[in-house]
């Protein structure tokens, strides 16, 4: 579009210009259909009601489920140190390799427990979620992809110059208390240790490889102050205790599954447990508990969900009612222009003027 001389001489005639008028679209004119329920009192009350109506039943159901679970919790860390009182004594006791650490505990079944009865151990004040601890493992090695790979396992990467398998602090600090259950003093209760870990862990995360050079299995390991030995003739993916242990917990207080008793326990039964109190939680004052628990469809005994649901539900209904009453007594007419700030201001000034 080169201009020429004529364009200026007949500039009086308006040149045909391209219109620059913006094209109409709902987008550019910001007129896209939109909706949003206004959070008016009606809606607030309704939503609270709805939440209440939905949550209370869920809460009731989950709480019932939780309450249906029978749980026996027994702390034995003090009981099994022969009632030594000082911490030093306890530490000396637990670190002494030569002592027999067997300890018998009696549990009373207060309510019928249907099989399977899950056996858990619970540790307190044990920071499995510490950064140094969590990363001290090598998943490649555990899978069996490269058994000599010990990256990240320090300080438990090598022993006697050879790579440890499984390496790292987590495996090294394996929980090693053992429980033997008998009912009524005579009848032994079998504890099934199969199927206590997640299937994905068993099948994919741990390989079919034998542990080797594991320090806790060495007699000359002077640093042995805790931590259990492994069955050197069993592949890792079958040692479910290790697999469970290595799924590190989120909080310093945690339960881990020990096994399943596949017999029903009756109310009034006395269960005696022979505990090998090997594991050292005494240096850091951590507690050890033995837990026997049935499960519901929801899981173990945990009323948190139920209570949370119920609380939220009841609060919602309560708030809905309160709001409803307030609304009845003191309704705000919706969209009343007299509530606009400038109108209120004008009213104020006119009132004060009079």
């Amino acid at each position, binding site marked *: 579009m*080169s*201009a*020429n001389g004529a*364009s*200026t*001489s*007949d*500039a009086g005639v308006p040149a045909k210009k391209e*219109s620059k*008028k*913006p094209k109409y679209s709902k*987008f*550019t004119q*910001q*007129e*896209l259909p*939109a*909706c*949003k329920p*206004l*959070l*008016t*009192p009606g809606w607030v009350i309704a*939503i609270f009601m709805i939440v209440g109506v939905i949550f209370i039943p869920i809460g009731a159901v*989950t709480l019932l489920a939780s309450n249906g679970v029978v749980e026996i919790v027994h702390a034995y860390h003090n009981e099994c140190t022969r009632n030594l009182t000082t911490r030093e004594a306890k530490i000396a006791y637990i670190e002494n390799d030569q002592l027999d650490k067997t300890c018998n505990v009696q549990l009373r079944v207060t309510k019928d427990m249907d099989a399977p009865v*899950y056996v858990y151990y619970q540790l307190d004040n044990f*920071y499995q*979620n*510490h*950064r*140094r*601890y*969590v*990363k001290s493992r090598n*998943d*490649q090695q555990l899978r069996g*992809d490269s058994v000599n790979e010990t990256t990240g396992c320090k300080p438990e990467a090598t022993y006697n110059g050879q790579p440890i398998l499984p390496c790292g602090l987590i495996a*090294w600090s394996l929980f090693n208390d053992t429980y033997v259950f008998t009912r009524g003093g005579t009848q032994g209760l079998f504890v099934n240790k199969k199927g*206590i870990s997640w299937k*994905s862990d068993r099948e994919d*995360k741990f390989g079919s490889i034998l542990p080797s050079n594991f320090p806790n299995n060495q007699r000359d390991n002077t640093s042995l*102050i805790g931590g259990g030995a492994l069955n050197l003739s069993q592949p890792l993916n079958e040692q479910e205790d290790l697999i469970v242990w290595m799924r590190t917990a*989120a909080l310093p207080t*945690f*339960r*881990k*599954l020990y096994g*399943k008793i596949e017999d029903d326990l009756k109310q009034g039964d006395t269960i005696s447990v022979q505990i090998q109190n090997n594991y050292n939680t005494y*240096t*850091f004052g951590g507690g050890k508990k033995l837990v026997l628990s049935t499960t519901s469809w*929801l*899981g*173990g005994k945990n009323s948190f969900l139920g209570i*949370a649901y119920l609380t*939220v539900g009841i609060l919602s209904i309560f708030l809905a009612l309160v709001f409803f009453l307030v609304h009845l007594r003191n309704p705000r007419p*919706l*969209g009343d222009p007299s509530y606009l*700030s*400038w109108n209120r201001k004008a009213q104020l*000034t006119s009132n004060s003027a009079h």
Partner: protein
Amino acid sequence: MGGLERTPTMSRGGRGPMDSAFRHHSADPHFGHRTIYCNDHAANLPFKFKHNSISTTKYNFWTFLPKGLFEQFRRVANLYFLMIAILSTTPISPVHPITNVGPLVLVLTVSLMKEAFEDRKRYMSDRIINSSSIDVLSGRYWIKTPWSKLSVGDVVKVYSDQFFPADLLFVSSTNADGICYIETSNLDGETNLKIRKALERTWDYIDEEKAVDFKGVIECEQPNNSLYTFTGNLIMGKQTIPITPNQILLRGCSLRNTDAVVGVVLFTGHETKVMMNTMDVPSKRSTLERRLDKLILLLFAILFCLCFIGGIGSAVFVSREWWYLGLAVRDEIEQQYDPGNRFSVAILTFFTLVTLYSTIIPISLYVSIEMIKFIQSTQFINNDILMYHRESNTPALARTSNLNEELGQIEYIFSDKTGTLTRNLMEFFKCSIAGVMYGTGITEIQRAAARRTGVPIEEIPKSVDSIREKGFNFDDKRLMRGGWRHEVNPEICKEFFRCLAICHTVLPEGEDLPEKIVYQAASPDESALVTAAKNFGFFFYARSPTAIKVRESHVERLGKVQDVEYEILNVLEFNSSRKRQSVICRYPNGRLVLYCKGADSVIYERMAEGQNPYRDVTRDHLEKYGEDGLRTLCLAYADIDPRKYEEWNEKFIQAKSALRDREKKLDEVAELIESNLILLGCTAIEDKLQEGVPLCIETLAKAGIKLWVLTGDKMETAINIAYACSLLSNEMKQFIINSDVKSIRDVEARGDPIETARVLEEQVKRQLYDAISAADELQLEQPGVDLALVIDGRCLMFALDPHLRGALLKICMRCKAVVCCRVSPLQKAQVTTLIKDGAKRITLSIGDGANDVSMIQAAHIGVGISGQEGMQAVMASDFAIAQFRFLTDLLLVHGRWSYNRISKVVCYFFYKNLTFTLTQFWFNLGAGNSGQRFYDDWFQSLYNVLFTALPVLAVGIFDKDVSAKRAKQYPQLYKAGIDNLYFSWRVLFVWLFFAVYQSLVFFFFPVSAAEHGVNGGLDLGLWDVGTMAYTCIIITVNLRLLMASSSITMWHHVAVAGSIVSWFLFIFFYSGVQTKNRQDNIYWVIFNLMSTWYFWFLIILVPVVALAGDFMYQGFQRWFFPFDYQIIQEETKFKDQGETHDLEHQMEMMAMLEGPSVLTAEEERSLAMAQLPRERTWSKHTGFAFDSPGFESFFALQEGVPTPARSWDVARRASMTPRRSASRSETRAGQISSREGSHTHPSSITEEDVQLGDDELRFSRNNPFLQTPRKD
């Protein structure tokens, strides 16, 4: 961004020569002459002149990455993330480097791509310009050569419609008389043609045979950026001929109406005047963004606290007691866990935690905001049909996308009057000749005044055959069609009309018929005057450099038409210090007459004693016209004695060829002849109000915006306009601070400037304090009464003085309206700055002309009126709209929405990142503060860039609390922005509170619920719980956004659902694969989780509990303390008006779309007028409403440095202000004179200079002129 690359250009080409030019004028007149040998390539070589190729790019291939990255890391946020990224590659980092490097790389890539794209556009346009060809004389032939190969001294030939490739000396033209026409629209936006005239000595060198012989030496000034000056001499043989700007053809202009011209290259490439005017538009940041910085600082503080607590905590925690942590053997412990050195544990953990918690600073915040604003400005503001002006075919334009939300917080608007509030469509309306008033029209303002006072005015119907054309709206039988012959004083009438027809610098174009001719005038006033002369029967139809041809009717007898040629001897041009323009002409019969038109003050000073019987009556008329809002101008003439003229002319020629101080000398010489004037009468020109102005002002006032009118006009005119556009009303208490009172005139008469200043200052001080105390009293007596202040420029000068400034501010802040009249551009800027910095309020300046540029740049937001020819204001502005009334839409709709949206976006970012980060903090409190992460690396790095990125964009783009219509219907809603209701610390605190609350829910609920095993008796580990919590966060945070948005469109749903779904898709994939070299923490986690009831119950419970707090708060707030907009929402929804209003809106839209089928007569006229080629809206001849108080430099000196000196004008101003430079110290001379320059010539050259930089920007970047020559 665009500006940054120009800094080196400035320092390389800009300042250096400027300094030399300054020295050249002030110290050593011979310093820095440039000597050019015409047509002699070899002789010019030693001087090493710059080549003619230009480059406006920021980067080249090699520098792009380093320089581009450097630019990016100048942003503190990016630098911070770089630091975090580096930290995360060290062993102290708890996270994989990808967590921090990934998002940073993404953000940088996006920014760099944008840079590359923009730079490539610049490069392409440079290349087009550099490679366009031009005829250069080489040997005996014209050879086509690319522009870039051109060098100084070359002889070039430019053909019609071509652009000049460099600054040229005009040698010869194909036109007779050695003239050519040029169009300078690329320089100053004017489309009217300008004449350039070659030196007579060089006229012949047009053909190649002759041009080869053109040998000469040019001595001229060094490159500088003063566009309208040039000093130099052409030495040919023994002859030395002065070169004036009249012989200079500047790069950027194009040749018109001339077949070809020959020129010699003087300045090339970056040394051309237009390139040297290239300058940065100061980049502005919005207030909200500056507040955002504070918020970021707060986040840093929170981050520091979290890390500090963690650092101490971890130092306390580490102990050999935790035997399973393997801390027994010292050699194998990292420093970070060494119980033997707890101090280093604390320090290192601190940094570990900084890396872990780095997500607290939202990395994508800036990128998201940029994107949102970009879409807001390019898609919404630029495309708003309601802001499209059909008459001028101009849509609104956001020239920057930085400031959208600032539009929603404006409290003060500073508006120019002419062209902004008024149309600047000058129409000859009335006149007074020989003491008789003519013209029957009634102005808007008169009507407004009549309404005000209640006195009805008598409308005189238009005569049937009244002539109505552009620039002429005058009806009075006594003067039309020769009627003036029967008036009392026909001789004076005749002189009056001749003065109108002769004394101007208008160029006629087109056929010489009254109906066909088009006048190219420098200002619309001039064109109106010449048009008036035409309609009175004195038809100016042709101009040559030495003569003006007028077709006079009815002169000898009624109906007789004769062509008369007046020889033009001298034109004494207008400038704003002279405030007048004269032409000396010789009648065919030899009579020598000087015709003069100018401001009343200057004409009255120069009148002949005792020969002016109409002196007083005309003054009354002037006042009357002023009251009616008309622009007045006095016309006078003087007969000149030929002998005296010869004497004078010699002096004039001398002055004209002076190398130094030419303009000053010319002014002085002109003064000699412009005396003993005989007054003919005065003209009155109407400047109509723009469409919709009063309504718009009323709306803005309701919105709590205070409008100040800053104008160069007279006080009466300004007040009247203010009344007409309902800015002032009779109910208001007005304070008037005026220097034009008797006491001051008396002091002035004594002629002692220092005494005058003292008295004035006293006066201003007293009036200010009086006003304040009066205002105090009034407030007590009648609260709610509105106050208004009117102040003139001269008083303002004193009121702006530091010790009175406080008082001025105090009274101004109380006033609802302020009118400043007779202010200079600098004062406009000062007033703006006063409110901006003194009162810390957010300001907007709107104007259309070059004299508004300084205030447009000074305010937080500058708005230019576009669609008219003058582009200066637009080029300096941040937003351009075609009409003042569009401010309503721009502020109340776009600004308001932008502010709401951006506030929401920022708050939401703050919330979502804080919530996320705090969960990790809670977790770490229970993990020995070791810096263990609660989530997987990828979760953390994708949180901002993927799973929560889109919905927030939807809010930033679509959120709409009330409809546009409602926003305009209830302007008061805008107050929320002024009071900053949506981005205050209070609002942030609420978000902060709920962020903390939610983070607690997100952490403790999943953890607590996971405690005692799930179905199947299995137990959940760290990563299961972490993933669970993360899922809850993603769901909740996205739902929270829906709660935050006022309107939910389809895109909200898409974005929110998309984000949540994308998280699930991601986790399904991610937890389904095993990777090498990494921990398989997340392997199969989600599937395990989903196999439990725990998961499903929690993802219902957690979002509900987390959002319950916000829900209750929102419900309560709306119920008991509703915001105004919420009431409007309810009204819209429940009062059953929604439907109708939407319909109305639709109708309005449809009307806009289709355009009216039938125009009213008035509309038709305005449409037709609008389509005529417009005069520019300002000029150096602009209105004779002068605005150049010459006393301002005095003030500036006193005050210190109130505004940055305009260095580009130093050279010129130094030469123009000898009166004062004597009393000034050498070092400050340049600065001060330049400042003075910028105000003494407000509407003239100076401001053009100021603006040219932007024009240049425009044409070099966006509008490569070669590619698209203007065709207007």
